[in-house]
């Protein structure tokens, strides 16, 4: 990922900042300028709670080059209490146990390294819920 784009995405990736439509209340993550539900353009900044529920998941056995050493690993669509959904890795557990309905906490982790000497890209990953 080019550094400028990574930099622009810091609010969403580092702090889980999302956008909430003032008209219909739909939460978009990452934040959008136009609401995909009602096309309203008045958006309020909200912060997602750092936990959610797995909606659907899969296990990656043949990963992209940057993730070769992590396979097999679980990818999941996670929904937070605010209704925002996004795809993330779920780590620190057996990937086969990551199934719909699983509660996860969102922890700040290293997502990937930009090659051997490039920048380090951080964001959030799911881990088994603490409650």
């Amino acid at each position, binding site marked *: 990922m080019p550094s400028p784009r990574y930099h622009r995405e810091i609010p969403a990736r*580092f702090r889980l900042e999302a956008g909430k439509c003032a008209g219909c209340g739909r939460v978009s993550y990452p934040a959008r300028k136009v609401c995909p539900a009602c096309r309203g353009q008045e958006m309020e900044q909200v912060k997602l709670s*750092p936990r959610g529920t797995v909606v659907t998941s899969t296990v990656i056995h043949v990963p992209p080059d940057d993730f070769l*050493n*992590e396979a097999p690993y679980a990818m999941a669509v996670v929904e937070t209490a605010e209704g925002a959904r996004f795809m993330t890795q779920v780590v*620190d557990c057996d990937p086969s146990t990551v199934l719909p309905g699983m509660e996860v906490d969102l922890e700040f982790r290293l997502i990937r390294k930009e090659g051997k000497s490039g920048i*380090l890209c951080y964001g959030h*990953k799911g881990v088994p819920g603490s409650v």
Partner: protein
Amino acid sequence: MVARTGNRTLFQATHGPLPLSQRGEKRQNARSVSFGSISGTLGYPVRVPGDTTFVKRSWHQEVEMPGIVGYGAFIPRNRIKSEEIARQWGKDPATIQRGLLLKEKSVPGLDEDTITISVAAGRGALARAGIDPQKVGALYIGSESHPYAVKPSGTVVLEALGLGPEIHVADFEFACKAGTEAMSVALAMVESGRVEYAMGIGADTSQGAPNDALEFSASAGGAAYIFGREKLLAEFLHTYSYTSDTPDFWRREGEFYPRHGGRFTGEPAYFHHVMSATQGILDRSGHKPEDFRYVVLHMPNGKFPLAAGKRMGFTQKQMETGWVVNLMGNSYSGSSPTGLAAILDVADPGDLILITSFGSGAGSDSFIMKATELLPERQGLAPTVRSMLDNPRKYLTYGEYAKLREKIILND
């Protein structure tokens, strides 16, 4: 002595050893100084350029010290047992466990480093402090495994924690005492009145060469502390530092693993500095070992802190709560700060706590603090150290450990 020029006031705290001959004189000159009474035009003590007069503050003065308003810790979930490492290198596990008193250690995942540990610990500290992150005016991170050689860990951490951009940030390095170094400076920034709150973090994903004694202890973890003046969880009473040039452990630029002087790391390094700093702060404060309910000394292995504590008159009961090394290893800059977090997790109001760090090279920082009435209600607002030691963990084989610690040479 307080120097005043108009409404300008100069304040300087004394640190470090005081010649024995001056100690009596210092006590006689002791006077009560509160920060409110020496405030300068900006509401905090101001250094006046060119003015050679300064305040020498005695440790016996009744100075309103700032303290901890929030703390948090983080320990990765992966573990490797000492016997698994011993088996790999043909060593007797019982001898290792008996000699180093290490049962297992934490291991960072491929996606965990000093930055991610600092963020997790920092979030716990903010949760317990209950303050607006924007009011944190300084962030210091002590580590000997900052992920970048050039680019601060602190910039990533401040964005993730929602601090800044009006904030002073620096990464510190002083082997295993970089964490208390960060805490010392954060405390001083609040003490001086420069900032309302300051955060000091000690975190590491420690390195230890394969088949080296360090491999049994070098682990991952850290703790974060927010310092302030109001709603304290622990009031800081005294600080003291003791430092000399002692080449007991080092890592040259570009080298992957640290080197050490074997037995030289013991008496002239760890024991000399830890005991000198601890004795120094006891002398300055007038406290005796039995005054403390909890004591934590830096934990390079299980044996050293217990031996040093015993020599100075501390009991096992005083030391066992902060002695987390047997289950998590030595998280270098995170070691004694994590032990302190384990103590704060269970301390009662009024408990007196002593912490002494050690960083090779070499030096020690000692702090004395007292738990406040507010501490118990904040203890449960973030994960406790004990919960992270006891909750489900993944035990690794040596092969998995070598992969996660990137000890295996791979093609590009």
